[in-house]
């Protein structure tokens, strides 16, 4: 069959392949090249070597975005995963009505980032109003606003993955531990958590990568205000491209740095998951 199929290459793969070239591969390679040039439109690119990268790392806004994003990622990863795991644990106790709760907790995940941003802008500003400030008064409000928003959006998603993981733990394993006289806390620590380790790995990396790539929520909630202090990496790159004439090359260099960061995390996950598989 393989021989018969070979000559059907154009029909089966060409549409996807062409779209992939246009949307991804050509722009990707062009983007790599342009990060070493100065340009306003693609056609007038002039080679400048590493100067865009130097400018990027000397750029206060970029460094601030990097630091803000890293702090944000750490805080959200911890809060989201602790909450999601706790919820998943409570929802797998065989209590009636758990399906309804699962439905409710997951729902925010389907709402788009722009809509989420404006929902939380209303609520957080409403609370802060009582203290006479607004969301954009100080960067710390924007930071915690984003953390709360991200928690609301992702807890349900991670909870679903944890529930699937917990439900895969064989019940006889837990029964055996009970018979041996292990306390519920011990069972959780020594049986359940090790058994759901794959789910934990997936959730940790999903939350890290989602936090790093956050854009829509950031744009809608604070748009970087006050004075770009709450702009995360993706928003800072966008601002550099479209908000500052002559800095397109620097924007592209920032984008390459951003890509490398995300790629390192993805490879870390791959290696981590592979090594776990070998162990088991």
């Amino acid at each position, binding site marked *: 069959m393989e021989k018969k199929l070979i000559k059907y290459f154009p029909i089966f793969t060409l549409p996807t*392949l062409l779209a992939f070239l*246009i949307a991804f591969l050509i722009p990707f390679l062009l983007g790599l090249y342009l990060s070493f040039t100065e340009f306003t439109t693609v056609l007038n690119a002039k080679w400048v070597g590493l100067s865009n990268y130097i400018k990027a790392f000397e750029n206060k806004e970029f460094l601030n975005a990097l630091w803000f994003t890293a702090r944000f990622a750490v805080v959200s990863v911890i809060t989201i995963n602790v909450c999601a795991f706790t919820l998943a644990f409570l929802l797998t106790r065989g209590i009636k009505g758990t399906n309804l*709760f699962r439905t409710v907790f997951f729902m925010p995940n389907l*709402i788009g*980032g722009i809509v989420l941003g404006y929902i939380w802008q209303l609520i957080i500003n409403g609370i802060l109003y009582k203290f006479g400030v607004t969301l954009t008064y100080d960067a710390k409000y924007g930071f915690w606003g984003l953390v709360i928003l991200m928690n609301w959006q992702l807890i349900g998603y991670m909870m679903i993955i944890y529930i699937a993981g917990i439900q895969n733990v064989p019940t006889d394993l837990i029964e055996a531990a009970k018979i041996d006289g292990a306390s519920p806390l011990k069972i959780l620590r020594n049986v359940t958590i090790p058994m759901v380790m794959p789910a934990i790995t997936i959730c940790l990396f999903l939350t890290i990568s989602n936090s790093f*790539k956050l854009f*829509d929520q950031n744009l809608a909630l604070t748009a970087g205000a006050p004075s770009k202090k709450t702009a995360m990496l993706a928003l800072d790159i966008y601002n550099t491209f479209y908000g500052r004439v002559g800095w397109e090359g620097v924007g592209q260099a920032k984008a390459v740095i951003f890509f490398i960061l995300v790629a390192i995390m993805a490879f870390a996950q791959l290696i981590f998951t592979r090594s776990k598989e070998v162990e088991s």
Partner: protein
Amino acid sequence: MKGSKLKVNLILMVLLILAIAFLAPILIVLMNSFKGKFFISDTPFLLPNSKTFAGLSNYVNGLIKTGFIQAFGWSLFITVSSVVVIVLFTSMTAWYITRVKSKLTKSIYYLFAFSMIVPFQMVMFTMTKVANVLHLDNPFGIIIIYLGFAAGLSVFMFAGFVKSIPLEIEEAAVIDGCSPIQTFFMVVFPILKPTAITVAILNTMWIWNDYLLPYLLIGNEYKTIPIAIQYLRGGYGSIDMGAMMAMLVLAIIPIIVFYFTCQKYIIKGVIAGAIKG
């Protein structure tokens, strides 16, 4: 026994409070969408009263200001047609590159997988330029762009499933005189259906809510729902809060309808996508 019943009730109480807290933001937006625009920012937690109640005026206002109805139309058109195109072409590609083993198909597979880890900002500027040159900056051209961006995850997921289909089934079809195209559509695709649903759901959730890509590509002329909502912010940060609340409600309604009609598939799809992606 008495103790455990108490514990169950305690857990239920905690869950109930949390569920209300989870729903509250949406309910607060709904409540404020019926209040006059000057009564929203300062007192968002008060129910509308005779002084602040604005009826449906926010909705009327918002619909006119944003062109929400057209935006809904474009969102629907772009999402549905892109998802159909994505499911059709990426499943065909995945089957071909799994069944025909060569250096070429292997490199295509790895390129697709690689594209999954590249953040959008990396190609944002250059992709927009390429699409402009090729005149893909319209609601039809954007379908091709979405196919290109979806190729990574979708081909990856389909290919994973194709590997588990026994070759004998396809060989039997070939012996019965089926051409590869007939084999694919009459034998393979029906088997791929569960993965097709997952791929369709994941792409629907992404494309429906996508803001930056359509904004850069077609945002000047054609607004999708997220673009219409962001458009309300206008320059200088002055937002018509009334219209904003009403449009947020209208944006959330289709999502809730979609969620309740396909909940089972959505949850399955999200789990499958998370594990394989």
